[in-house]
């Protein structure tokens, strides 16, 4: 009555291999993998771009924000127009070292003011459409065949839509030390054996899904937990490493992963009320973590292989609200950070008078997909049209090494 379809022993003698990560050979059928790594850091909740990179040289900023506008003397000035939020000493250092590109005014047409909708648009790189897969997932589908395992790592509790892929099952975890099946020695064989029973998949698709995930878990858990066990943190990532230390550990272990995704989670940047202290603190955490990560990569000699994209789902309303906070807005800056980056300003700086729509939101000056396209075309060296469906302007931000 029941068909025996497939039997796969996925792991062997895992108990004996701790500390001895076997080098993995991948036969790459695809020439398009150039060894470069992209790390995306999402600031969820809608980071207030105007209070991150503050246009103190424009009086209109203070007119819109009489109470929560950051005073000139508090800012970390980078030129005679912009100053960094006082909390981002780490980013200021990276900027001054020429490792941080600021791309201004990133947004899209008909912006959604819903966190979840707007973030979904950022994740799919397809605003106002029903795209099913994420842009990182589609990038993976294009770059690597499904036989290339562990191409995407998403450090998070749950999987981001950004990494949803047709062909790849992303490795998703948030506690590498826990990413292991526990059990007695005698149980290992049965525990690690996956039996697919696809006789009812047409009726129960949940079951098929669970089997796929179980397969991926068996294939990746040893890699991750061993990489983490071998890693020692030698730089200061601050109060919250935002999981960038975990990514550093995997890069140091030379995982085949090329696309990493992590997030400052749980809508943290949604600063409707009394935002200044909170926002500065959040930015400090993120900025310390990014600086720690870049230092860590430099320590291991891998800094030139990696760039970090820092993004959020939307900027915030230009005028402050009465609660000493800001409501959901539209465009905002994105950052690309790394030793291969040619630091500086890119994109048109939004106009705080004529650049506002009826709802007092910034009209975008850069389609956010231009930033994605820049990374895809100029960093990963893949034709972005295949992923983003059309051509977007790119920025020349990598001419240091690429």
């Amino acid at each position, binding site marked *: 009555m029941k068909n025996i379809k497939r039997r796969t022993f996925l792991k062997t003698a895992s108990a004996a291999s701790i500390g001895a990560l076997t080098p993995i050979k991948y036969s790459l059928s695809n020439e398009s993998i150039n060894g470069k790594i992209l790390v995306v850091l999402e600031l969820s909740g809608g980071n207030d771009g105007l209070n991150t990179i503050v246009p103190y040289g424009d009086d209109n900023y203070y007119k819109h924000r009489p109470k929560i506008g950051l005073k000139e003397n508090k800012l970390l000035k980078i030129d005679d127009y912009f100053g960094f939020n006082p909390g981002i000493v780490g980013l200021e250092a990276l900027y001054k070292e020429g490792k941080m590109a600021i791309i201004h005014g990133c947004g899209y047409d008909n912006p959604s003011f819903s966190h*979840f909708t707007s973030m979904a648009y950022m994740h799919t790189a397809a605003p106002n459409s029903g795209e099913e897969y994420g842009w990182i997932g589609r990038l993976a589908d294009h770059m690597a065949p499904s036989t290339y395992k562990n191409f995407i790592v998403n450090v998070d509790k749950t999987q981001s839509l950004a990494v949803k892929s047709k062909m790849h099952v992303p490795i*998703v975890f948030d506690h590498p030390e826990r990413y292991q099946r526990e059990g007695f020695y005698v149980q290992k064989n049965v525990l690690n054996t996956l039996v697919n029973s696809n006789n009812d998949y047409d009726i129960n698709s949940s079951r098929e899904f669970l089997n796929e995930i179980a397969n991926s878990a068996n294939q990746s858990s040893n890699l991750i937990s061993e990489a983490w066990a071998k890693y020692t943190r030698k730089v200061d990532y601050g109060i919250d490493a935002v999981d960038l230390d975990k990514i550093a550990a995997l890069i140091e272990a030379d995982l085949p992963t090329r696309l990493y995704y992590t997030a400052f989670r749980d809508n943290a940047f949604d600063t409707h009320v009394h935002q200044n202290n909170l926002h500065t603190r959040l930015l400090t955490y993120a900025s310390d973590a990014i600086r720690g990560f870049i230092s860590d990569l430099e320590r291991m000699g891998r800094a030139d292989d990696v760039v970090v994209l820092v993004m959020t789902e939307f900027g915030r309303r230009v005028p402050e609200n009465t609660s000493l906070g800001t409501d959901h807005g539209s465009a905002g800056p994105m950052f690309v950070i790394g030793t291969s980056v040619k630091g500086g300003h890119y994109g048109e700086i939004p106009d705080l008078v004529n650049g506002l729509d009826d709802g007092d939101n910034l009209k975008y000056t850069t389609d956010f997909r231009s930033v994605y396209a820049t990374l895809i075309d100029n960093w990963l060296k893949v034709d972005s049209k295949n992923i983003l469906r059309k051509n977007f302007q790119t920025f020349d931000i990598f001419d240091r090494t690429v």
Partner: protein
Amino acid sequence: MKLIWLNIRKIKLFIFVFLFLFSFNISAKENPNWYGNIEPITSQDWDINKAKHLLERAGFGGTPEEIKFLYNLGLSKAIEHLVYYENISVSEMPKFNESDIHDPGLINFPPSRPATTKLAKETGEALGIKVKESGNRKLQPIVNKFFFWLRASRLETKRVAYWWADRMISSPRPLEEKMTLFWHNHFANNETKVRDYRKLLLQNETFRIHATGNFRDLIIATAKDPAMLYFLDAGQNIKGSPNENFAREIMELFTLGVGNYEEKDIREAARAFTGWNTNDLEFVVNKDLHDNESKTILNKTGNFSGEDVIDILLSQEAASKFIVKKLYKEFVNENINDDIISDYAHVLEQNNFELKPLLAAIFSSKDFYSEQNRGSHIKSPVELVISTYKKLGLNNTPGVPDFNQSTTAMGQTLFWPPTVAGWAGGRSWITPALLMERGNFARSFLYPDIDFIDKDFYSPDPKIIVMHKAIREGADITTATKSSNGGDSMMMMSEANMMADRDEDFNTRYGSYRGWQMAVSKVKPIIRDTININFTKMVLDSGAKNTSEAVDYLINRFLTVKINSEKRMMIISFLNNNLGTNNIIEAKTYLEDPLKMVLHLIMSQPEYQLG
């Protein structure tokens, strides 16, 4: 009824009957036309498997005896028992046992540590503590209390979660608890923002009171609960410059969904909610701050109040569909078709947003019992834990493993939903790592950790621990802070760590350390008991005589979706190998551990995630 379940001789009989019926029914194929058909099944269609499915979905599953009890009631009585539960007494369910950590100084708790110290500097007092007249670290006691409350409320909220978990396991009204959980996910407030267990406890009671009541009453009660008012900044929403947070979420997440309103509707609705606020735990409308001008919301114009807005929202066609869709996804299947949603939305509207008739219709329908909708639901971590404990026959939540740590490791922490949209549910519960955690969870109650430490009580943060040691050895605060930052061993110092001791009036890291100590002195501990189940007895009482029967009994008891025969054979031969025989009666003196290992294997299967 509980007495019957506890009567062991009768249980034996039940199980024989149960197994017989089970094996009889396993081959029965349902009519394929049932999928998508909301007509009720007939009493002839009712069988033990349907009772099992019903208890799994309308509750958290149960023991074979509980399933048999529901089966014996017959279809309509079973549904009445689960849905129309008013006459089932819950007066013996214990109230939450509070730790007494709150005092009047903590009312109107400032939004942040800087806001607290600013208030203290300006007024000479904060959190009920006066600023020291002179001397070093004048604000330190205030900063200590600030961190005390953050930690204490957090710890107490975890105790509330424990209390609720016990209630989910032992309540004679399982649907009431399941719907309370559903509403917690629908109106998802997070302790990190609310920062007051008292408000979350009140909200939990509100969800329970209205669990299967009227949706309109529920929304109004929830909107007026201090937790929600605080969570969505309602108190900040005042005439002249409204804060849109609450108005946006009530449309987007609570009633209509994106695409059924415009931005201007949000702005106008926010005006109607102006002046809504709390006085500690009481709802108040501040008339001076309420906007009394005319508003236009979804093409209706008038001087609307907050309640009026809720009525306008519920009068939209999208409203009933929105909530029905969410209920259907939770109780029937993540995959939906629009026709059935429209049909059920009609039921909800006809009943004036009363939920019981809708739930009864869903649980009676052919669709609900169709093959496609059985065993298709991926359990949330809380469901997985509660249903596991229920199927084991436990009456309360064990202390080891820690309930909150277990569910957190699997991706869900009660009272800490990740965002205002709640947990995404369905497939998002499963990632490679989370699937492994689910198997590890089974092991953690079968083989409790003897080195268990409650990490909320005892800090795992090395910075705090290093500071603690330095202070204990007599170091001054500044020196202790420096050593907690790793001294000179770090290549560079982050901004945040340098800021820990920048103000001479107080030291934030010391405050967080002392606050922690103060919190663990006051919050009552959680009892760390472990499960104590005799699996040998459970299996032998079932009548099983050999390893195949033992494995089949455990599979039937714990799984909704059966594993295939190859895996079953693998587990049987595992048991044979570990016992050295297939005769479990012969092996009964050393059967216990091998049975636990078998149970761990069964619960590690992908199939165990389905209900």
